[in-house]
C-alpha cells in the first residue's frame, strides 16, 4: 500500500538570496530573472516520490517579506517539520544572516526540525564570496544538511528537497502534521472545520432554523 506523508517546510534567509526562486524552480520548474517578491500565495505544494510505496508532499511556506524587519510571526515556525535556510554564495553577509536564522529556528521551532543550509546562485560561482569549506564546516558543526544550488539553472534544487524528504521521519502517517490543505483523512484533525456546513442532524428540522434542534432537545 502506498503512503503519502505531508510536511510543512519553511524558507528562511535574507531578502534577495533567491528563496522564492528556489521554490518556483522546485514546484513549477520555472525561473524569472526579474522576479518581484511573492504575492498572493499562501503556500505552495510539491510532492517528492521516494520509492514505489512512498511519496512526501511538502507544504512550502514563503516568508512573504515578513523576514525583512524582524517581523516573522511565531505562526510561521509553528509545526514546521523542515526548514531551508538560504544564503547567496556571492554575498558573505548573507551567510551571517543565515546563521542568525538558524539560531532563531533552534530557539523557536520544534527541536526535531530538519534544517538544510543552502548556498544559492551557484551559476554566479565566478563571483563567489562564501567558500564551500566555510559553509560546510559550519553546517557540520550545527548538524545541518548542506548543499549549493542554482535556482536559475536548476542545479541541485530537486536534490536538496529529495534529500530532506529522505531525512524526515517517515514512521507513521500521523507525521503529516502540517496544517492546511492536506490534513489527511478523518481523524488526522481533532479540531472543528469552519468550512463544513453546519450540523447535518439539525437539517432534519425543515423549514426552521438549525438552532431549533438544540432548543427542542433542551426543553
Amino acid at each position: 500500500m502506498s503512503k503519502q506523508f505531508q510536511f510543512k517546510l519553511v524558507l528562511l534567509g535574507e531578502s534577495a538570496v533567491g528563496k522564492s526562486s528556489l521554490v518556483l524552480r522546485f514546484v513549477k520548474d520555472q525561473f524569472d530573472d526579474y522576479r518581484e517578491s511573492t504575492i498572493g500565495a499562501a503556500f505552495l505544494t510539491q510532492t517528492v516520490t521516494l520509492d514505489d510505496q512512498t511519496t512526501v508532499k511538502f507544504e512550502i511556506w514563503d516568508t512573504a517579506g515578513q523576514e525583512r524587519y524582524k517581523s516573522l510571526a511565531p505562526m510561521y515556525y509553528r509545526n514546521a517539520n523542515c526548514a531551508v535556510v538560504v544564503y547567496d554564495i556571492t554575498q558573505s553577509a548573507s551567510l551571517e544572516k543565515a546563521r542568525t536564522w538558524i539560531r532563531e529556528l533552534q530557539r523557536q521551532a520544534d527541536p526535531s526540525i530538519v534544517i538544510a543550509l543552502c548556498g544559492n546562485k551557484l551559476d554566479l560561482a565566478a563571483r563567489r564570496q562564501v567558500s564551500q569549506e566555510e559553509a560546510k564546516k559550519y553546517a557540520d558543526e550545527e548538524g545541518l544538511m548542506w548543499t549549493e544550488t542554482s535556482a536559475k539553472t536548476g542545479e541541485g534544487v530537486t536534490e536538496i528537497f529529495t534529500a530532506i524528504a529522505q531525512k524526515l521521519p517517515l514512521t507513521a502517517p500521523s507525521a503529516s502534521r502540517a496544517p492546511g490543505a492536506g490534513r489527511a483523512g478523518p481523524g488526522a484533525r481533532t479540531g472543528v472545520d469552519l468550512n463544513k456546513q453546519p450540523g447535518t442532524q439539525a437539517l432534519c428540522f425543515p423549514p426552521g432554523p438549525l438552532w431549533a434542534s438544540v432548543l427542542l432537545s433542551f426543553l
Partner: protein
Amino acid sequence: MDEEYDVIVLGTGLTECILSGLLSVEGKKVLHMDRNDYYGGDSASLNLTQLYRKFRPDQEPPTELGRDRDYAVDLVPKFIIASGELTKILVHTDVTRYLEFKQIAGSFVYRDGRISKVPSTEMEAVKSPLMGLFEKRRAKKFFEFLQGWRDDDPATHQGINLDRDSMKTVYEKFGLEPGTQDFIGHAMALYLDDDYITKPARPTYDRIILYTSSMARYGKSPYIYPLYGLGELPQSFARLSAIYGGTYMLDKPIEKIVTDSDGKFVGVTSGGETVKAKQVIGDPSYFTGSDDGKVRVIEEGKVIRAICILKHPIPGTDDSDSCQIIIPQNQVNRRNDIYIAMVSSTHNVCAKDVYIAIVSTIVETDKPELEIRPGLALLGPIYDKFVSITPLYTPTSSGKEDNIFITRSYDATSHFETVVDDVHDVWKRVIGSDLVLKKREVEVQE
C-alpha cells in the same frame, strides 16, 4: 523608508490586522507597524517571558510552570462564536488554512450560589436545575415562538412586533420568571447588563438565534477557539496582508503622527524617520497623547481583567478543559455581568495540567479588584494572578476630515462580534463604501 504608502496601520491587534489584510487584498499599499516586538497588540497571546515582562518586569517566570514556548496567554478573554461574523471573515479570507480550531467544552451560568451548564444535549436539559418543570413549559412556548417567527408571516407573530415591542413585553407575554430572563438575556443573548429589556426585542431575537445556531453547529458550546491562542488570529491576517504585498515592521516605537497645517494626516515618525501615506489607521493607544492639542480618543469606561494560572480545572465544571462562566449582574448585585473564560493545554496555550482562567468585568467602583471577587471565588486555589485595568477608548471623530482613522479598544463582551462591527465601521470610513466579503480564489498549486 522613502516610499509612500496608501495606508499606514499602527498596532497589530486583531482589528488592525483584519483591516490590513483586507486592504492589501484590495490592492492598497500597506505599511503595518507595531511598537512591540510581538504581534497582537492588546489582543496578543504572550509566552511566559513576555507575560512576566509585561506585568512583573523584575521577576523571572517560575521554572515549575514549564517551558516558555508552551505558553500563549491571551490578554483579552474572548472566544469565537461559531456562526458569528468573525467566522465568516475567517472563511471568506481563507486564513483558516493557517489556523486550527477546537470547541470550547461548555458554557456555564451562575445562579443562586452555584454554576450550572447551559444544556447542549437532551440529557443535560432533563437534568438541568436552571428551570423548574412548569417554567420549562413556558420557556418552550417562548422558544417555539422565536423559532417559528417569519417576518413576512403575521400569523407567526402572535401579536408581537419585534421592532416596536420591548423584550419586557415579550417576556411578560410568555410569563417568564426573572431567573429565566437572566438566563435568556445574559447566558444566551450575552448582554452584559439589563438595558436591553426596555428596548425593542429584535436585537435580542437576533442574538438568541446567533447563540443557538452556533451551539447547534458543533454541539458542546457556541464557541470555538484557535489552537495556540487568540494571538494566532492577528498573525494569520498579518500573513494574508504580507502575501498581498503588505510591509511589516515590529518593534518600531512611534514618535509622532505628522499632520499638515490643516490638521490632515501626512505621515508617521519612527526612529527619527517620517514615512508618508495618504491615510493612517491605528488602535487608540497610538493616539492617546496628542502632539497638536487635539483629543482624538475618549475613555468610555474601564475593564478589569485578572489572568489566573490554575493547577486544576474549575470546580463544578465536570473537569472541562475549557469553559465560559457567566455571572449575571442580578445574581451579585451589580450592573454588569462578570465573565470567566478558561482554556488549557488542550488548546496548546499552556503546559499540561495548567489552566488559564481570565475573570473580567466592566469597572463600576473605585475598587475594581473587589468587584471580580465573586468570579475569583469560583476558581479554587489560584497559583498566580495578573491583574490589569484597561481603559476602553473610542475615537472622537470619523477620521474623514483628517485621514486619521482610529479603532476601538477590545470591550468586555465574550466574543468578537463587536470587533467585526468595528472592522466594518472603519472600512466604511476609510474606503467610503461598505465592506463586501468576496470569496477569494487562493493560489494553491498541486
